[in-house]
């Protein structure tokens, strides 16, 4: 279950805006090998894990990856 928290996972300060770099970084969010895809993959894989540790770590890493999307 998801709950929004009015804060960031990690604070980032952009000193020098760089549109070309931004274009690249956005693919790391939403692209085929980006955070969003990875997050959903972990959250799907957790269903077929055989041990408590494996289920927990895939659940929590899946959530952590989705939190990276809110870093700004």
């Amino acid at each position, binding site marked *: 279950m998801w*709950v929004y928290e009015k*804060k960031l996972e990690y604070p980032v300060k952009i000193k020098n805006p760089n549109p070309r770099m931004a274009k690249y970084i956005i693919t790391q969010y939403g692209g085929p090998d980006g955070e969003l895809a990875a997050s959903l993959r972990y959250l799907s894989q957790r269903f077929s894990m055989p041990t408590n540790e494996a289920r927990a770590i895939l659940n929590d890493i899946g959530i952590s990856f989705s939190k990276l999307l809110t870093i700004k």
Partner: protein
Amino acid sequence: MDQNQENLLKEVMAADFTVTDLMLYLDTHPCDQNAIALYNYSVQRSLTLRQEYERLYGPIIAQLTPSKFPWQWVQGDWPWEK
């Protein structure tokens, strides 16, 4: 968001980051007593900081905090706004 609020929010975020990191570690090392002690300490610290922040500046999680009038959740201070 003034400087004091930003600083306190950063402390909350740093405390929570520690909790998250220890949680991920403990998922695969559930029998590390030192790590559990550090985790328990960090959770307590995060709770104290959150309560202080919410008392001064409003809710971090909408559904867990009682609201003043008018409805506080919509009153700005989103983390991407400076």
